[in-house]
């Protein structure tokens, strides 16, 4: 079978490369996949529902098995959903899975977007895919809104009515747009069939097209990865598509479907028979929309009674919270890659992800944005909260009006502070691998660096001990913030005792590094960036600067610098050997090998590094500051 396809399409080499394509392995990269799987489940269950649904506003009399509504005049759409829920076998479970999947679809899309935001995965060259993903979020919101309006029940009718009010509030064009969209003044009869064609054809079609583009761009650009040993801006480290990633993804897809099936079977959602059919003269109280619309409802609830008329043009009180606010919010979100680029002046390509702490400003802004969303969402349930706490709904509204302005900045400032402290604490989650940190002593032996001064050295597991490493110690927001508050990542091993060498008081490794994330990566790459505190703007310049040409003057200087610092602090990289758990230096090119015994002078005569430099153009002294510390040139 495979051979048949292969011989017809000639996919041999492409297929083999595709199956071996490398994807970095991290749990946070699966969130977007969950969104994709939710969409697949939505298409599958939605197709089933379409077979029974009638997009028809004609009035019929309900004569189904649900007693309380029997004999009532309802729309044909409502009647068909009732029939689907009560008479079609497996209909209700399908409908509930569909609704739950819709909620999880939007949720996983948003969480995926947060992951991309907080780790900086949207930066060049991925701005395009951010825009594509953002458009899909908009489509998802549209799909959600049109979908929950289809049953034509009382709650969805209220949502439509508020949507109509938001449309009509747009200055000048509002009444025309609303009339065109709804086919007249609300309530109208055509709106159900229009929502239907949007929900089952236009919006899903666009979503599928953009989904294809999203995945194709991802495939083409290769996935981002977190910092780690051996990872660089120019490679991708991870497991192949087949078999590991493919089987894992299949598993996650089935798991998503299983959870949704369980919820669809056991947890009631959108019981339209309790709401009753739509009636223009009644409204259910309390009425809340699906979760992703709640923040807009909350914003309209909190907005003060303010409706200025300027030159005869009234700005309706719906316009600011329900049209302008989401418009601005989403514009900022959509354009964020470009805004950040302008703010940081960082136009370089990035394939290594940030840890949220590495960019406190961005993290703080994201936290503030999420808190703003949360406060508004809670405000959307102010009547429910007031009912539960048995207080006046007016007090709740006043409280949320205050909270809307206080909570986001305070939370953002707190996040900023936590990030800064974490960043300066040297307790970077990426730096705390399993095992102990070792360094060369002046005598040439090895000693363990106490955990508190995790410097630019290396990480080596000792004794083959497998240290339990929670997924959360890696770089995602909450883990990132909570990480250092938790116990040592390697419980059971008393700190300060290595298996090789004898403990010595730690050497002074200089100032804490400016950015631990970058610094750690540079340590892994063998660069000494974290030893000296870089000048302000150093990082940025470094990122923009290209790697010097091999053999050029800059390259030479870099080598010299690196070697000098390496000797000064006795840096050494080591790796675990086999199962014995011993340590040996990693294989290196001869000219970079360290000679600790002669690190002050080159009397040994076999120092390859010294030979490398001989005969080359001499390096200018005193020009760079750093070069002065060159151990080779000291008298």
């Amino acid at each position, binding site marked *: 079978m495979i051979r048949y396809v292969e011989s017809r399409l000639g996919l041999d080499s492409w297929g083999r490369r595709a199956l071996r*394509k490398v994807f970095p*392995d991290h749990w946070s990269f699966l969130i977007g996949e969950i969104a994709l799987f939710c969409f697949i489940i939505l298409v599958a269950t939605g197709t089933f529902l379409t077979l029974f649904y009638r997009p028809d506003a004609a009035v019929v009399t309900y004569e189904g098995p649900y007693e309380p509504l029997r004999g009532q005049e309802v729309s044909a759409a409502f009647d068909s959903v009732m029939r689907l829920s009560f008479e079609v*076998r*497996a209909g209700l*479970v399908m409908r*509930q*899975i569909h609704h739950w999947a819709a909620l999880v679809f939007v949720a996983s899309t948003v969480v995926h977007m947060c992951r991309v935001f907080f780790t900086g995965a949207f930066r060049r060259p991925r701005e395009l895919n951010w825009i594509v993903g953002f458009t899909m979020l908009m489509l998802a919101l549209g799909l959600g809104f049109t979908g929950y309006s289809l049953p034509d029940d009382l709650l969805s009718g*209220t949502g439509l*009515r*508020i949507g*109509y*009010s*938001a449309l009509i*509030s*747009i200055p000048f064009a*509002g009444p*025309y747009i*609303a*009339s*065109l969209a709804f086919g007249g*003044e*609300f*309530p109208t009869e055509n709106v159900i069939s229009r929502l239907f064609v949007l929900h089952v054809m236009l919006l899903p079609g666009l979503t599928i097209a953009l989904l294809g583009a999203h995945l194709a761009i991802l495939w083409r650009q*290769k996935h981002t990865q977190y910092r780690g040993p*051996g990872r660089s*801006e120019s*490679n991708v*480290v991870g497991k*192949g598509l087949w*078999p*590991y990633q493919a*089987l894992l993804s299949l*598993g*996650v*897809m*089935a*798991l998503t479907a*299983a959870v949704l*099936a*369980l919820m669809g*079977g*056991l947890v009631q959602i959108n019981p339209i028979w309790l709401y009753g059919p739509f009636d*223009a*003269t009644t*409204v259910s*109280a309390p*009425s809340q929309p699906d979760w992703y619309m709640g923040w807009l409802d909350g914003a309209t*609830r909190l*907005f003060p*009674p303010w*409706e200025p008329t300027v030159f*005869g043009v*009234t700005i*309706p009180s*719906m316009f600011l919270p329900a049209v302008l606010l989401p418009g601005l919010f989403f514009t900022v979100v959509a354009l964020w890659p470009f805004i950040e680029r302008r703010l940081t002046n960082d136009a370089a390509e990035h*394939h290594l992800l940030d840890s949220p702490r590495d960019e406190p400003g961005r993290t703080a802004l994201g936290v503030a944005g999420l808190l703003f969303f949360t406060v508004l969402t809670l405000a959307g349930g102010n*009547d429910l909260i007031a009912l539960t706490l048995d207080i006046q*709904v*007016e007090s709740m*509204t006043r409280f949320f009006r205050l909270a809307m302005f206080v909570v986001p900045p305070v939370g953002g400032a707190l996040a900023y502070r936590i990030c800064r402290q974490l960043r300066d604490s040297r307790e970077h989650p990426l730096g705390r691998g399993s095992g102990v940190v070792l360094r060369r002593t002046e005598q040439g032996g090895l000693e363990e660096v106490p955990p508190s001064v995790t410097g630019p050295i290396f990480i080596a597991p000792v004794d083959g001990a497998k240290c339990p490493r929670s997924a959360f110690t890696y770089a995602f927001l909450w883990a990132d913030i909570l990480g250092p508050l938790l116990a040592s990542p390697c419980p059971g091993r008393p700190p300060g005792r290595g298996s090789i060498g004898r403990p010595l008081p730690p050497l002074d490794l200089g100032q804490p590094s400016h950015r631990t994330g970058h610094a750690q990566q540079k340590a892994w790459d063998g660069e000494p960036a974290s030893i000296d505190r870089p000048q302000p703007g150093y990082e940025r310049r470094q990122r923009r600067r290209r790697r010097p040409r091999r053999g050029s003057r800059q390259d030479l200087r870099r080598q010299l610098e690196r070697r000098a610092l390496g000797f000064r602090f006795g840096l050494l990289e080591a790796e675990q050997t086999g199962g014995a758990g011993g340590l040996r230096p990693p294989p290196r090119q001869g000219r970079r090998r360290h000679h600790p015994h002669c690190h002050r002078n080159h009397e040994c005569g076999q120092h390859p590094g010294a030979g490398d430099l001989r005969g080359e153009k001499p390096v200018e002294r005193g020009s760079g500051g750093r070069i002065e510390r060159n151990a080779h040139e000291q008298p």
Partner: protein
Amino acid sequence: MKAERVVRGCFALSLAASVGLSLVYLAGGSRAWEGVLLAAALGGIAVGFILWATRLIDAPDNVEERREQKPGEGLGLISEVLEQSVTGVSRRKVLAGLASGAAASLGAALAIPSLSLGPQPGRSLFRTLWVPGIPAVDSEGGRVRPEDVPLSGIITVFPQGSEGAGDSQAVLLRVAPDLLSLPEARASWAPQGCLAYSKICTHAGCPVGLYRAQARELLCPCHQSTFDVLTGAAPVFGPAVRPLPQLPLAVDEDGYLVAQGDFSGPVGPSFWNVTQ
């Protein structure tokens, strides 16, 4: 080996659950059991595949180099190919302008028929079906006398013949006449303390369906806009700005309530020229 046994067990469980799911369906169906068995069938596959991937396969970390995207190189080639379309054209800008102009006007011409989606709003937003002398009836079509209106509740009324009309619905209530402090011009609009206001909230158009009889306030359940019925439904809390338009009422010779005319203003949510 142990993991392999677990994976086998998971797939077997999934298989059994799928059979069970079919049996439940054939036996008449049950929402809860369908959900649970479907979840078990999928969950078995899920756990099986995840364990397969993480425990059974020894997948090493591979390293793949990113191709360096040199700016200009690939781009140059594409633009060279695209340039072929204008070789042999003397006035490129004119040609390109005309072609895009033709495309744009074709697009506009094709988009224009979307205007048939709905009528021009015109003055319809300023009018309802209430006309002078039309009787106010409840949703069943029954006429209402002032003394039928409860002091602690509300009735939804419509112009006779248009029961259920969305934009003409009004909320009818009664208070003691000496409590009223309506504007001068509306002194005759509330016979025997009967007041009728548009039931459509001036904020987001929800029906103002809650009445706090003690405080004599109408409350919209959607966004908690609150209106004081004694002062002409002026908003006292919430995001609504305009008062609910009042329907001038009168009592005809048979003692039933009729309208003196249309509402005191445009009903429903505000729009840009609502004050004109």
